[in-house]
């Protein structure tokens, strides 16, 4: 496939233009946007029960408060909006609808039971406290194990056994793989609920236009077009009258890749009251209500030869879906993700899985960076280490013996996922070299206790699912994710370039990296390119910024649109300069004859001509100088990396220190290495958080007991290591541009690497490290034997 010729700005660590305003405190985040004086401020009344019938709501005291304009119950909201329907379409899935505001029943703590509108946010909170709600508490289930017990209370009456999704699959000869002269190993792995926890909580703000019926919805989201389609549908308004604009977003991580009830609420109420309606989330709501993720239980069984070569793999995976199917990623995303990706870069042909999503009376699950890959690789990489320990083979060597080799590429894995190119063994060898792996192992021959601490080294060798075109989303049943992305590139009469893409960044530096890409495509100067994204009135339709897709999907669209624009520039220049278009080169905002740089025309002149300010255009040429295009990337584009973590566990207090962290990463062609490294740093530290300290803890009654940052611990600068990162570039051949994604890679690699490192550190103590987070008191129990 055509790779973009290496030139100009691709591969350069260009500093970000976003920083100019962000560093000055001039970034406009949701709560920074100017508000009309008559803005109505929303406060929501949250259910304190995990499962209950609402028996009475009395809003009179709230309504009597000065400044309160309206208080709407679920019944009143139901007249304005439809219940949320993720539309998930996959065999084995039982759908459920989520009322935007609960009507007769609540199913998790934090679910909305009433909406308050007031003229000031402080007053709205006062009024929310005055809404009187009476409940009849119902038995609830908070944990997977509770929910699947026979005769457990049902979260939804129509979902038997609390299993909303079930699927099984088998390929190859699994029975054969597990028979004969093979060994088998069974293990279970568990991860607790976590969330993206961006530093900026969410918010949304619906402004009616002054004239007519159009509404602009500002919302802190990663998926503006999906929000537009979803919200318009649920409030029964023409989609053409709804514009979604994404302000600066203070961290997304998948947490903001969801259509939330509040977005529907503010638009519906803006239409009803014909006033601006604004809602800003607080941290407690953020922790309670933003989609949760990765409460997973893996039961894995592997069959392998005495040489450590895996002959077959069996997986049973249970994921916690929470109380409702979220929109659009729903509750099949994690289960299907874990099942499809667990083989990673390994040659596993005989594979069977049984997966299920379990509903519980907790916050709905959604997509958080990495989705199921951090947990499925914790399982797979954990199995490989165990196989090594059992057979007395070094874990790196076990991996070598199972890795798909370059000569076997393109590779199609056991569930039909195509790996077009990759550098699995190469990354592994380089990472081992940088880490000084051999020397560390040699030192360990005297035991893991080194300089007073248990020291261990853990590897995660993984593939990452990136890009994901339409067929990929269809295979997962996700009907509301289009899978395509688009770009429009235009050269204005002044000769400057304007490009808009169907993306919405939250810190990835899109305004800089896509400027680099566009500049290279059309031969413009970087400073002459302006990128706009996240505005559905300006940006063509697309899937938004999720699942490590932007470079591939939007990049591909930019390449396609850019080709058209470049071709037209060449044709016009060729006509003027009386050469063939093939003889025209574009660079630095100028078209010139190849080999004769002084013979050229700058873009400004060509653009003026194209817009009719000059002589008539050549026969057959349309006016204007722009093109739009759409790209449906391959089903999935597989990136890969190896992470190696070196940890020290204090034998006395069982705390873990990450002493060194090495990444050798391959995301194909790198547009901006500085930004790619930044994504890896941030992802790894989120992974360290998940491995060591983060968990939403629910008690047996479904109360989240740690809904504050005092008790949901986020890693700080003292918990984060320095990094050694090297890049290998193996361009994808299936997708335009050669790019592979990288946004999620840091988390995906870090959780397994850290878990394996801790397990390795405790190897002398024969501790089975198979669940996260690895809090010190848990490690202490492992060290000293469970009481």
């Amino acid at each position, binding site marked *: 496939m055509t790779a973009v010729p290496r030139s100009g700005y691709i591969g350069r*660590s260009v*500093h*970000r233009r*976003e*920083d*100019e305003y*962000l*560093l*000055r*405190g*001039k*970034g*406009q*985040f949701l*709560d*920074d946007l100017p508000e009309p004086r008559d803005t109505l401020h929303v406060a929501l009344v949250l259910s304190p029960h995990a499962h209950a019938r609402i028996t009475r709501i009395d809003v009179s005291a709230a309504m009597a408060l000065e400044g309160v304009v309206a208080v709407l119950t679920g019944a009143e909201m139901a007249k304005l909006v439809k219940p949320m329907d993720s539309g998930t379409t996959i065999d084995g899935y039982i759908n459920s609808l989520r009322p935007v505001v609960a009507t007769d029943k609540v199913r998790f703590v934090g679910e909305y039971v009433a909406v308050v509108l007031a003229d000031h946010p*402080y007053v709205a909170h006062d009024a929310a406290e005055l809404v009187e709600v009476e409940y009849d508490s119902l038995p609830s289930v908070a944990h997977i194990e509770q929910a699947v017990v026979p005769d457990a209370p049902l979260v939804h009456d129509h979902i038997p056994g609390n299993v909303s999704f079930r699927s099984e699959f088998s390929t190859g000869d699994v029975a054969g793989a597990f028979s004969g002269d093979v060994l088998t190993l069974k293990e279970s792995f568990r991860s607790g609920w976590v969330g*993206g*926890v*961006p*530093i*900026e*909580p969410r918010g949304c703000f619906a402004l009616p236009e002054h004239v007519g019926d159009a509404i602009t919805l500002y919302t802190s989201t990663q998926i503006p077009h999906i929000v537009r389609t979803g919200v318009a549908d649920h409030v029964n308004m023409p989609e053409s009258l709804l514009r979604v604009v994404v302000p*600066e*977003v*203070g*961290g*997304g*991580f998948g947490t903001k890749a969801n259509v939330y009830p509040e977005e529907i609420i503010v638009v519906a109420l803006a239409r009803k009251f014909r006033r601006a309606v604004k809602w800003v989330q*607080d*941290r407690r709501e953020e922790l309670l209500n933003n989609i949760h993720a990765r409460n997973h239980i893996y039961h894995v069984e592997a069959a392998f030869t005495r040489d450590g070569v895996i002959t077959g793999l069996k997986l049973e995976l249970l994921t916690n879906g929470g109380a409702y199917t979220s929109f659009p990623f729903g509750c099949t995303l994690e289960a299907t993700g874990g099942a499809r990706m667990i083989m990673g870069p390994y040659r596993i042909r005989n594979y069977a899985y049984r997966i299920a999503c379990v509903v519980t009376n907790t916050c709905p699950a959604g997509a958080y960076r990495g989705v199921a890959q951090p947990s499925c690789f914790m399982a797979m990489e954990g199995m490989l280490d165990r196989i090594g320990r059992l057979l007395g083979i070094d874990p790196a060597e076990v991996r070598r013996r199972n890795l798909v080799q370059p000569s076997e590429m393109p590779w199609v894995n056991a569930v039909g996922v195509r790996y077009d190119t990759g550098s699995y063994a190469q990354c592994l060898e380089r990472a081992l070299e940088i880490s000084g792996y051999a020397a560390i192992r040699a030192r360990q021959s005297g035991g893991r206790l080194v300089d007073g601490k248990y020291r261990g080294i853990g590897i995660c060798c993984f593939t990452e699912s990136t890009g994901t075109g339409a067929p990929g989303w269809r295979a997962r049943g996700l009907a509301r994710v289009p899978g395509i992305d688009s770009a429009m590139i235009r050269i204005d009469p002044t000769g400057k370039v304007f490009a808009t893409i169907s993306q919405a960044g*939250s*810190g*990835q*530096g899109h305004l800089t990296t896509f400027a680099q890409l566009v500049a290279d495509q059309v031969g413009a100067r970087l400073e002459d390119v302006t990128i706009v994204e996240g505005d559905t009135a300006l940006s063509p339709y697309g899937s938004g910024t999720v699942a490590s897709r932007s470079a591939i999907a939007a990049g591909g669209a930019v390449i396609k649109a850019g080709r058209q624009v470049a071709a037209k520039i060449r044709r016009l220049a060729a006509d003027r300069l009386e050469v063939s278009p093939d003889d025209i080169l574009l660079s630095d905002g100028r078209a010139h004859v190849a080999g004769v740089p002084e013979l050229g025309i700058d873009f400004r002149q060509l653009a003026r001509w194209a817009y009719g300010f000059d002589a008539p255009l050549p026969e057959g040429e349309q006016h204007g100088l722009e093109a739009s295009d759409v790209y449906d990337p391959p089903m999935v584009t597989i990136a890969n990396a190896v992470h190696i973590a070196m940890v020290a566990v204090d034998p006395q207090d069982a705390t873990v220190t990450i002493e060194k962290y090495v990444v050798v990463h391959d995301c194909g062609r790198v547009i901006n290495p*500085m*930004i790619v*490294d*930044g994504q*890896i*740093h*941030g*992802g*790894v*530290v*989120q992974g360290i958080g998940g491995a060591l300290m983060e968990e939403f803890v629910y008690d047996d009654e479904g109360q989240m007991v740690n809904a*504050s*940052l*005092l008790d949901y611990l*986020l890693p*700080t*600068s*003292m918990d*984060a*290591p*320095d*990094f050694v990162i090297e890049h290998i570039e193996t361009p994808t051949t299936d997708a335009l541009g050669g790019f592979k994604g990288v946004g999620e890679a*840091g988390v995906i690699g870090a959780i397994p690497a850290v878990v394996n490192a801790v397990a390795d550190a405790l190897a002398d103590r024969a501790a089975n490290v198979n669940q996260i987070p690895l809090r010190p008191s848990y490690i202490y129990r492992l060290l000293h034997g469970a009481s």
Partner: protein
Amino acid sequence: MQLQLSVNGKTYSRMVEPRYLLADFLRHELGLKGTHIGCEHGVCGACTVLINGRTARSCLHFAIDVAGAELTTVEGLVDENDQLDPVQQAFRQHHALQCGFCTPGFLLTVHEFLGRNPDPTPAQIREALTNNICRCTGYANIVKAVSAAAAALRANAGTRQAEAS
């Protein structure tokens, strides 16, 4: 109640409800929106400002209670020509911000820290920053930026000293 205080060298006089948080006052009353609210329980540090030259969590103060104080917010860091100060420049140079939401809090914390410890080790930097949470950067580039900013500030001080003598 009547409130008078000074922010970034300018005096303001306003009427406020006692419970109006300082962070909300700065943002919505004075339009200085660079100070961000991340948690309202004093943990994340995004709301950090300087009160009488020292860092403080503006989400944990009532505007009325800092009457008479002199505050500095992120908007006050640029010079009179709107040029980024050495700490801001170092953050840009080293890609020490991604979404930018936590950044103003970090900038003010760094200023206070470098004022006390002009030549810190990376370990000291990590310790000084441990009460500002970033979810995007993984901190590594922030630590590098602070080292670089420290060097730049020392060089500036050296230059000023040389010029003064």
